[in-house]
């Protein structure tokens, strides 16, 4: 069996728009849909591995994991999230947690991907039963995160940002095929 030269490799992209959407949803899913199994595996392992390692670096048992991926567009504009959301579904919990925080509801999973609590000057405000009005009063502030995680906060941010940006390359590959390849003629 003679191997086809790479430049003549033809790729059936099926529905490129759907493949691109799936590739955004989960790294490698668009390629899996197109039957490009090896690349699906490579993208999934590389991109998800980088993202998960970033979540691990940017968290701790005490503070909760994944503290570097959060959405905030109020006082603090969390611009790295614009890169992190490139990874799709794995970064979506940050939006849910931000919504819960905003709606004064207790964040889930011990604050996984939850935005840091706003800096407050005094003790938490209590209701008439003596309970704190903000159910997330126990969540760390941005200052606490930076102080406790030190440079791991930045490292985790960089890892998760790069994972999101790499997935944009993967999305483009799912949509347009490899640069040095050739699309299958319909």
């Amino acid at each position, binding site marked *: 069996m003679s191997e086809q030269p790479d430049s003549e490799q033809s*790729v059936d992209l099926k529905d490129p728009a759907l493949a691109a959407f799936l590739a955004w949803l989960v790294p490698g899913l668009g390629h899996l849909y197109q039957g490009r199994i090896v690349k699906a595996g490579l*993208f999934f392992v*590389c991109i998800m591995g*980088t993202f998960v390692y970033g979540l691990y670096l940017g968290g701790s048992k005490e503070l909760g994991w994944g503290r570097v991926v959060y959405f905030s567009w109020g006082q603090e504009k969390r611009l790295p999230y614009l890169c992190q959301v490139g990874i799709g579904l794995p970064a979506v919990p940050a939006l849910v947690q931000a919504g819960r925080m905003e709606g004064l509801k207790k964040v889930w999973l011990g604050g996984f991907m939850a935005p840091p609590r706003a800096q407050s000057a005094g003790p938490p405000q209590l209701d008439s039963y003596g309970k704190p009005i903000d159910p997330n009063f126990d969540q760390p502030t941005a200052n606490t995160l930076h102080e406790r995680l030190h440079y791991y906060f930045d*490292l985790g941010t960089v*890892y998760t940002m790069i994972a999101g940006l790499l997935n944009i*390359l993967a999305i483009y590959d799912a949509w347009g095929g*490899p640069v040095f390849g050739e699309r299958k003629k319909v």
Partner: protein
Amino acid sequence: MYSALFAAGIDNHLWYALPLIIVVSLVYAATRHEQVVPILTHAVRVGLWIIGFMAVIFVLMLLISWWL
């Protein structure tokens, strides 16, 4: 002196760049080719290029720090 150098080598933040270089090289190369061998060959080239670029920046920074 060697133990100090060894310790500096182990406890160096630059090690965190290594997984990133590998992953970026592989993903970039995978967007260029479809088959495994060309992907790996291209990834090695990209990885070496990134390391070379980092080395040039390192030397530049070192020279600037000497002059300042």
